[in-house]
C-alpha cells in the first residue's frame, strides 16, 4: 500500500513538473535558482495570475486531464494531507 502511495505521489510530481516545463518552455527544473530567469514571477506582473489572485496555470493543468484523473489527484491530495497530519501528530 505504501509503495502504491509513493508511486502515485511520484507520478503526480512528475506530471506537475512535466506540465510546468511544457507550459513555460523550460527544460530544467533548476531555473528557480536563478532570480534573473524570465520565468521567475514578480509580484503583480504575471499574466498567469488573475487580478483576484487565482493561479491560472493550475486550472490549465487540471483541464489538461480527464475528469477521472482530476478526481484521482484530489484523492491523492487528501491521502497526502492525512499522511502529513499523521506524521506531524507522531
Amino acid at each position, binding site marked *: 500500500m505504501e509503495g502504491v502511495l509513493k508511486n502515485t505521489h511520484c507520478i503526480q510530481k512528475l506530471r506537475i513538473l512535466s506540465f510546468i516545463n511544457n507550459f513555460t518552455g523550460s527544460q530544467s527544473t533548476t531555473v528557480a535558482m536563478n532570480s534573473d530567469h524570465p520565468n521567475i514571477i514578480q509580484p503583480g506582473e504575471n499574466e498567469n495570475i488573475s487580478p*483576484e489572485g*487565482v*493561479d491560472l496555470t493550475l486550472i*490549465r493543468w487540471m483541464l489538461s486531464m480527464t475528469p477521472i484523473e482530476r*478526481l484521482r489527484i484530489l*484523492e491523492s491530495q*487528501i491521502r497526502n494531507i492525512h499522511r502529513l497530519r499523521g506524521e506531524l501528530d507522531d
Partner: protein
Amino acid sequence: MTDFIGILRILKKHQVDFFVTGGVSAVFHGAPITTFDLDIVHDCSPENVDNLIQALRELETFYRTRQDQRIFPEMKDLVGNGHHLLMTKFGPLDVLGSIGRGKTFGDLISDTEVIDLGGHSIHVHNLKSLIDIKELIGRDKDKAVLPILRKTLEEGKK
C-alpha cells in the same frame, strides 16, 4: 481511506438517481480546489430512497455528526429535503435532499452534465449552476472559492 470513486460505484450499482455537487463536482470540471467530502443530491422519491438505503448499507454508513453512536439514516428522513452528513467505509459523504434555497434533484437535474467514470455515467452539477448556488448562499467558505470557480469556467470555454 478516501475513495470517492468507490462510493460512486456503489451508488450506481444500486441504481440510485443522484447528481454530484459541491467541491467534487468543481474538481470534475477542472477547478484546482481541495475538499474532504463527496456531496450528492438524490431523488427523494420512496423508490429511489429505497435504492439509496441499500447502497448506504453496503457503504457501512453512519451519521458522522454523532461520534458516540453509529446511527444509520432512515427512510422517513431521506425522503425529506434535509442534509445528512455521513461517514462511509470510503470516506465522508453528504446526502442532500436539497441545496441552495430548497432546490431539489428534480429542479436541478437539467443543470447537470454526464461524465463517464470508468464505464459508469455520473451526473455532475455543471459549473455555472454551482456558481449561481454558491453566490446565492453567500457563506464565507463559498465566497472564498468563487474566484477559482469563475476562472475555471472561463478557461474551460477557451
